[in-house]
């Protein structure tokens, strides 16, 4: 029964994490809308609650009580499964992301993460790429042309950038000598990995943009071309899970991983170490800044055509990632 006890404890902890992520993602939508608004000289959500603070709640309620419409020609099982398949892997990445060192409050040790694994980074990569199924199956199950094209497009983009991402991760791994995200952060005591890994960072930024479907890579739901992309036929909560997973949860989690890999995770910003800010807050500050950066890019740039994106993945990003490996290898051999 020890097992059951652990399981229940873990389930509660997971639930807290997931709920936190849900709420976080909901408010990230508000953040995005506010940011987009101000970039465009308008205030964004304003009247639903003070400064639009209740807007995400209203949206969530609305989406939850929309008719659950299943079109005639769809593959019903797959249709429902696809939205789960997009959502679960995206949130699973959260489980391997550490938000800080374990710390003790009132004598209880608290681990600000679900699991700290030796192969954490690999699993994050793996989960990140499993979400590709959600996209393809959503397109396929809908049995409609726009979703089909949108799904395949997104799949093509994900594929291209996943490979580049895999190679780009090699740099930080080489520096830290481990797949464990915690160890990677610890290895950045003296110097952040951005220093020799600048190429990898560029690649990772592009990959995150591509995987989360933000401009210049938002081909899958390019409104002007494909209406809603692979979610065109989705209604209600089935639909709600997609943007939640793709635009917010995935962006957040991948930003977190990027911060861990290149910006020293929860270590304070340089020269600001004296500030009385707890570790995980530093981490959130960095993630927030990176997230804002992605938003900023999203609301500025036009989008590529899908073949240009994949071509860029193979012809620019992959060589860059390989070059990064070479540079880091030489760096390690020279500087130890």
């Amino acid at each position, binding site marked *: 029964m020890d097992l059951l006890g652990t399981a229940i404890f873990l389930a509660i902890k997971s639930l807290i994490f997931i709920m936190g992520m849900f709420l976080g993602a909901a408010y990230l939508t508000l953040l995005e809308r506010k940011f987009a608004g101000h970039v465009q000289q308008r205030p964004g959500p304003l009247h639903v609650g003070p400064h639009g603070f209740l807007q995400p709640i209203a949206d969530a309620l609305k989406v939850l009580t929309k008719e659950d419409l299943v079109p005639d020609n769809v593959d019903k*099982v*797959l249709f429902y499964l696809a939205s789960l398949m997009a959502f679960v892997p995206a949130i699973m990445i959260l489980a391997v992301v550490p938000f800080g060192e374990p710390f003790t409050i009132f004598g209880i040790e608290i681990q600000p993460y679900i699991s700290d694994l030796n*192969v954490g980074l690999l*699993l994050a990569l793996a*989960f990140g790429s499993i979400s590709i*199924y959600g996209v*393809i199956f959503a397109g396929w199950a809908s049995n409609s042309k726009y979703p089909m094209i949108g799904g395949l497009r997104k*799949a093509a983009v994900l594929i291209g950038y996943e490979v580049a991402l895999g190679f780009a991760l090699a740099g930080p791994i080489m520096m830290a000598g481990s797949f464990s995200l915690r160890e990677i952060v610890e290895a950045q005591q003296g110097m952040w990995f951005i220093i020799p890994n600048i190429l990898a960072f560029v690649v990772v930024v592009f990959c995150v943009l591509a995987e989360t479907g933000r401009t210049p890579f938002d081909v899958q739901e390019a409104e002007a071309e494909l209406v809603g992309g692979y979610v065109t036929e989705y209604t209600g909560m089935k639909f709600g899970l997609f943007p939640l997973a793709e635009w917010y949860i995935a962006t957040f989690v991948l930003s977190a991983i990027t911060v861990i890999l290149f910006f020293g995770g929860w270590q304070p910003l340089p020269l600001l170490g004296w500030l009385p800010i707890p570790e995980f807050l530093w981490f959130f500050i960095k993630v927030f800044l990176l997230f804002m950066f992605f938003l900023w890019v999203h609301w500025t740039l036009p989008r590529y055509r899908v073949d240009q994106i994949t071509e860029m993945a193979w012809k620019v990003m992959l060589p860059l990632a390989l070059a990064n490996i070479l540079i880091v290898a030489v760096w390690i051999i020279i500087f130890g």
Partner: protein
Amino acid sequence: MELNATGFWVFSSLAVLSAIGVVFFRNIIYAVLSLISTLIMVSGLFFTMGAELIGALQILIYAVAIVVFYVLVISTVPEFKGQAFETKYMLISVPVGFLIFLELAFVSLYGAWSSNTGIFTQELIQQVGNTKAVATLLFTKYLFPFEVASLILLVAMIGAIVIGRKDHVIDEEAEK
């Protein structure tokens, strides 16, 4: 450890169930779905055996890359018509499979592998961790097969491109 045992039973039963699904689902897309499920379950089994690196790579390479390849091809192929099964082969395949199964069991029980010990002992593995152990072995002792793997991949790529390409399209671009 209780956790391992539970894990084994859960994962293995699910793996077998989904494997049955792979074999008997008429709709190819469901078969592939079951395959994904099987692969993930197998990866879970790897984790219960302590093979972390392999477990992670199983998901990364197998459950994602290879199956995505299948899915891409399937989802762009018009639906297959006709009868999905040929039951007459069932009669042959079951005994043959059973034979192979017996053989495997025999080999394993008599420890045909015991002679082949590597540079790692159990303690060493515990110490450096499974990941590094596997990696070190791969890049030292099995260096030669490792390089051969790259050749295999190269050949596979060239072969596949040659087989799978549509001549007129690609040659036009090659000329450019």
